[in-house]
């Protein structure tokens, strides 16, 4: 008999031709104890970077631990394809490593941060300027095995040479880091000529607190507390992502009622942050009436959170294994923790459902507001794709998905993903209004579901976390208010060995820089506020 291929239905079997995918290249590397992380040699790493240029995989983050470089990509065309991360690691051989930023722009802040913290540089780096170390620290490369002496270099900001047209016909002026506003310490250097902003550069690092170093070798509880303080606007998202990553690593799962509580907290945080971003944007657009309405609604929601959980910003309500709700005990309430959270969800819905519709209507009819927003800060779909922009800003450009659609926690909850192709401030604001409406629907569904079920005790809302002596790694992604928040955690003996964090803030800051170009200086705050960038989360 012939040993030729068996052909079913007369159709020859598909044979893969052409270039291998990034996923195939990584998977061909050496397996590690963790099934989604592979060890690559330098040659394979080069090949991986080369193929990453036109691969549909989404770049998530690039980190260093002092001896190795790790890159995490989500294997799929976009967030629409769900969570399928794959990590590649390469041992450092000397002070340089093959960089990724020349094929993925989103890697720029990661490479710059690695250079500042570990003193290792990316080859072919698009931007080699320091990101957070501007000569004020007590040592250079503080996280390297052998950190350097204190830098006594110039204190002056290190910026690119000024644009020739701006130098000849315009002016350069700075803004920040202390403006009296409450939007985080950061310095912007704007080059203005012919009535428009032609160059924008950001000097960051003012809010760098050394979170990576602090979380290293911390207890799980200590690291969780720090995770909630990466950026207060996404405290729940970060603590949930950290907790889920540890749960993934140690092999436990959060009880279902506790997952509902986490969703309620996360959606409440989303509503509060969107209200704040909208209020700041409205104020920057001189729409004081709608701005004050949005601020007041947010304040009322925060008060409800404070009464229900004791934490207005819902910090430290999520823990590894579940949630912590103790406020009802302190007040001596007859209802249990689960019903307390359900009541919070219900009260927020009752308070906000009508009010947000009124504010949205008002937003649309404020004279001149719509026109001003439509003309400002436009980011094209192509730019968003190049930046791999996720979250509200990405969805406003028609790019990027919503990880909530793929999360088990949101499995039985129906909501609509808001998307637009406008790409300007108006589109971003519309997406936020839509998302607030959808989050309220989620709160209502879950509050009703919890109310219909039986009450649980605090012990039923938190699984016991085992202390395992072996080294284990876990990852998690949570859709935060302004985009996906990733945590990759390594734990051993109840201690956090390493925690890698990817927050959307650094990409959003780059996107804001691009969107500001060409706008009038009057619209600078307007465009910047519409992105909702958390400076603290970008600086870590």
């Amino acid at each position, binding site marked *: 008999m012939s040993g030729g291929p068996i052909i079913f239905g007369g159709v020859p079997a598909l044979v893969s031709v052409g270039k291998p995918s990034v996923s195939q290249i990584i998977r061909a590397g050496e397996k590690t104890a963790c099934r989604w992380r592979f060890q690559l040699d330098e040659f394979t790493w080069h090949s991986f970077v080369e193929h990453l240029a036109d691969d549909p995989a989404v770049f998530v983050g690039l980190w260093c631990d002092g001896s190795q470089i790790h890159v995490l990509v989500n294997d799929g065309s976009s967030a629409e394809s769900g969570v399928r991360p794959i990590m590649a690691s390469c041992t450092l051989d000397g002070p340089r490593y093959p960089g990724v930023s020349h094929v993925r722009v989103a890697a720029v802040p990661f490479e710059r941060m690695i250079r500042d913290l570990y003193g290792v540089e990316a080859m072919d780096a698009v931007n080699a300027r320091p990101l957070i170390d501007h000569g*004020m620290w007590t040592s250079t490369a503080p996280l390297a095995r052998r950190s350097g002496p204190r830098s006594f270099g110039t204190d002056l900001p290190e910026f690119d040479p000024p644009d020739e047209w701006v130098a000849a016909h315009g002016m350069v002026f700075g803004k920040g880091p202390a403006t009296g506003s409450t939007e985080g310490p950061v310095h912007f250097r704007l080059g203005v000529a012919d009535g428009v902003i032609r160059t924008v550069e950001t000097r960051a690092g003012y809010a760098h607190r*050394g979170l990576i170093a602090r979380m290293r070798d911390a207890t799980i509880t200590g690291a969780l507390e720090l995770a909630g303080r990466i950026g207060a606007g996404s405290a729940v998202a970060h603590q949930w992502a950290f907790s889920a990553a540890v749960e993934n690593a140690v092999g436990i799962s959060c009880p279902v009622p506790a997952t509902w509580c986490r969703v309620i907290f996360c959606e409440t945080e989303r509503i509060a942050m969107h209200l704040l971003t909208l209020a700041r944007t409205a104020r920057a657009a001189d729409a004081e009436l*709608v701005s004050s309405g949005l601020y007041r609604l947010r*304040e009322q929601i925060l008060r409800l959170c404070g009464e229900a959980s004791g934490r207005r*910003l819902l910090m430290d309500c999520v823990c590894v294994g579940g949630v912590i709700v103790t406020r009802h005990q302190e007040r001596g309430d007859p209802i249990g923790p689960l019903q307390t959270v359900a009541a919070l969800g219900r009260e927020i819905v009752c308070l906000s459902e009508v009010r947000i519709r*009124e504010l949205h209507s008002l937003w649309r009819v404020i004279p001149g507001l719509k026109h001003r927003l439509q003309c400002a800060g436009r980011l094209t779909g192509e730019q968003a794709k190049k930046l791999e922009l996720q979250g509200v800003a990405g969805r406003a450009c028609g790019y990027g998905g919503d990880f909530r659609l793929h999360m088990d926690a949101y499995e039985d909850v129906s909501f609509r993903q808001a998307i637009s192709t406008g790409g300007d401030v108006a589109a971003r604001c519309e997406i936020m209004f839509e998302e607030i409406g959808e989050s309220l629907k989620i709160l209502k569904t879950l509050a009703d579901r919890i109310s219909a079920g039986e009450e649980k005790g605090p012990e039923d809302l938190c699984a016991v976390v085992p202390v395992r002596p072996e080294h284990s790694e876990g990852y998690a992604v949570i859709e935060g208010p302004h985009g996906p928040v990733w945590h990759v955690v390594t734990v051993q003996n109840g201690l956090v060995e390493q925690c890698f964090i990817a927050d959307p803030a650094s990409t959003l800051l780059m996107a804001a820089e691009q969107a500001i170009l060409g706008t009038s200086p009057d619209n600078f705050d307007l465009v910047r506020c519409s992105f909702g960038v958390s400076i*603290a989360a970008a600086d870590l």
Partner: protein
Amino acid sequence: MSTILMRALFASLLGPSGPALPPVASRSPLMLFHVDSGGCEACGFEVESLINGGFGLAEAGLGFASTPRTADMLLVTGACSRMMAPVVRAAWEAMPQPRGLLAVGACAIDGGPFSANYAMLGGLAGQSSVDCAIPGCPPSPRDILDGIIALISTTQLNPESSGPITAEG
């Protein structure tokens, strides 16, 4: 359209504001200048809520300035990074005398979760004399307001205060 605008206007004017507080400043409002010296932004959010959330700042005789040159008190949030230390110092020196220093939140007082390391000074304690410290992580807007009211009701601003942040930290 006009109905919506009118309703919003009335809601804004007649909406529930914070509890009425006795005026504590005599002639002009006490002006504060806020500096986030590097934290997680939670205290900054609460200061923003205090300004915009209907807490009756004007009734309490308080206001926020956009420049330290017209401010009476420096309100510091965050654990004070080494990069922000010269900025806080510059803001302090730009303020007219008498002037006061207000540390809001655990971070601003002693660093809270962000103790001193290569990038942080770990709060204002040990760096300078603070006129008023409001603890909490973060303190609520009401706590902040009560702290400020208590301070200005009982003490005078210190013209000889050493100010924040030593040069080396």
